[in-house]
């Protein structure tokens, strides 16, 4: 049994500690907003917050994060009203939408660290992959979210 603090709630989770956090979130807990894309921390579709920082949950063993605060897209805001989500909606960023959860989690972590990020900050922080090519709108939405916080 693992004890995990997910979205502000501590809970017992029946999973092998070597299981990547991604699969504990998705399969054990049913938090399927966090996506699988590559399994090798390349694409960022699985991005969650660990003590406020963006991490790629496919490459983090669940047993290693027992004492840490984990936030997933389901816990980012109650009603989809995080500034990043509001900006994503306003700019109509998503196409297929599959990578966008990871994008929004990466963007939310960036804005926490740098409330008014430059284009260079965005280039450095948002290294996730989008196959639909929504990058222009992602950049636009991050700048917009910076005005909403």
């Amino acid at each position, binding site marked *: 049994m693992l004890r995990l603090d997910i979205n502000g709630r501590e809970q017992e989770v029946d999973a092998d500690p070597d299981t990547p956090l991604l699969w504990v979130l998705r399969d054990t807990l049913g938090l399927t907003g966090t996506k699988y894309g590559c399994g090798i921390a390349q694409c960022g579709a699985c991005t969650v917050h660990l003590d406020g920082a963006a991490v790629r949950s496919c490459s983090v063993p669940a047993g290693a994060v027992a004492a840490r605060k984990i936030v997933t897209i389901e816990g980012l805001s109650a009603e989809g009203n995080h500034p990043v989500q509001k900006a994503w909606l306003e700019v109509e960023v998503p196409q297929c939408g599959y990578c966008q959860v990871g994008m929004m989690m990466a963007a939310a972590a960036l804005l926490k660290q740098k409330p008014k990020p430059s284009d260079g900050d965005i280039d450095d922080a948002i290294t996730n992959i989008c196959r639909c*090519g929504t990058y222009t709108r992602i950049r636009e939405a991050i700048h917009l979210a910076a005005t909403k916080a």
Partner: protein
Amino acid sequence: MTLLANGTISRRLFLVSSAVAGGGLMLGVGIPDGARAAGDSEGAAVGAKVNNWIIIQPDNTIIVRIARSEMGQGSFTALPMLVCEELECDWSKVKGEYASATDNLDNSFGSMSTGGSRAIRDSQEMLRKAGASAREMLLAAAAQKWGVPRAELTAANSVITHIPTGRTMTYGEIAAAAAKLAPPTEVKLKDPSEWKLVGKAQARFDTADKVMAKPVYGIDVRVPGMLYATIAQCPVFGGKLERYDEAKIKMMPGVRQVVPMSDAVAVVGDSYWQARQALAALPITWDEGANAKLDDAAIQEMLRGGLAAADAAVAANEGDTKAALSKAAKVVEAEYSAPFLAHATMEPMNCTAHVMPDKVEVWAPSQNAQATLAEAAKAAGVDPKKVEVHITMLGGGFGRRGAFQDFVRQAVTIAKAVDKPVKLLWSREEDMHHDFYRPVSMAKFTAGLDASGMPIAWQTRVAGQSILAAVRPNEVKNGLDKNFLEGLAEIPYAFPNRFVDYAMRNTPVPVGFWRSVNNSQNAFYKESFLDEVAIAGGQDPYELRRKLLQDRPKQLAVLEAAAKQAGWGTPPPAGVFRGIAYHDSYGSLVCEVAEVSVSDRNYIKVHRIVCAVDPGYVVNPDTVVTQIEGAIVYGLTAALYDKITIKNGRVEQSNFDDYPMLRLRSMPKIEVVQVPSGGFWGGIGEVGLPPVAPAVCNAIFAATGKRIRSLPLKDHGFTAV
């Protein structure tokens, strides 16, 4: 407008999860209370089914049936726009719902194939007529109820008004009566000048759910009692499963069952991770078969043989190309090639299946619900009427999830063996190793120029692997695959003498439809070589194209629109160079100008891409912008970085570390100029892709004097920044 405004959720509305923070998930697939629409299969929306496409609920909610999958290209918004333009309904109360593939066994919804940039252009007339027909039925029913002539009524915003008295009635009030009437035999469609909804940017139906992570993609499907499976397929194409040692993994945690197939083996477990760990530990012996030694060198040699072959299938023969070449003042020759490419959808292949004694249920991110149903019925060995398909949200499609339903066949095969619902999910590596790749091809061009530098002869030989030969061989006529010759057999340029032929050379590597299909290679070849011809003839590449399109006013307008927006002919910023490319595909006309700089260490930066497009009519202008942007990124990614290589009969690339993707840092500024000229319906999902590689490569030539005749650019020492 929301997708799930009133909380009633039909099974064919987008599957939406109700995951709550902290855990717990339930699929939003509850069957609504109350009577379902007459004549509809189980689970369909409640309300009056006015016709196949339109259900009107008493509260004036309008549900529009959609036969084409939503994979990010906006079909769930643009297709209802076409219906509602004629229906004269309140757009803020419209929702989309998938048509059922089972209901469509009689083809009453037409094709459900979502590819070839066809969703709008192939169904627009049927959908507009459905809207107009339903409107007339509602008006006729209102006229009957009031006992007044139809001519005294008008409809707008889901409200019918009796003009002489000012009485009103809503669609919701009269829909049940209207549904009982016979549809009119003929309806008149609006002139495009009368459109109020079509052509105006509408917010997409799916965005609000997507920013909340609510949509259920195939990978997210959870049904009660479900098990998880993952699969290893023979890494060598055409190879078979020889044996495996189940005993070695039987004691591993969560392992339920091993399911062998002729060319694959799947492990079923209590979770994906457990199944995956067990599969990795499973000793498997493959019979690698005849292709175990296949490699790129052999494939390249075969294609070169195609370029040199005496025999080839003639695709175009205008004038006397041979004679014109012999008297040309100058002859230009070049060979081009393009590699295999993977689709690499962000969501790896997956499917969930439940095989029950009297029914088969399948949840799949599929570009073609009909094909999914047919494959599931075949794999389960049941009558297609016994199959129910749920199309989930798709994490990208790009042609991988339509004609090829291998993931459905496998999921149903596994579910049949385990007697429980099973979700099959491929690893990214499996997805990369078992795609239906964009085919390899090569082209040899010969052009004859007159003394003024104008091309008087244009000869093209292409060689390479035919998709149709594998998937629809009856469409291959006299050795010609029309897809392979897209953009080459027919060409907008006025060349007085032109000869094009094709030497089909098929490899054991499975090939398929990759966003824009052969247009992607052919535009690279044709537009790069035309640039060579312009340079050889001492002409500006844009001015040469203008001359060649003189008799094609629509094409010329697109070319000029792109050049104008890009500032062709004016000096670009210091160190920046421009390239231009023009290519028609899927009924639309497209020109792109790229602005590129190349450092002395061969770092390449694509600063800006201007795209002018004439799709005839525009339905949702914002979707046109995003589809062009997406297609440019897809094409630019391939041009910069990617190729699939074959060694020992298998694909060498495995994941995004060795098959890289363009990322935000390298995203160019994209400017889309929409110049819809009317009179035709072109596609939009793919058409932005073909010109991007040649526009960029022509700009690289302008910058460096180096002509790029094969892709990706990485192979030529260029590093994208």
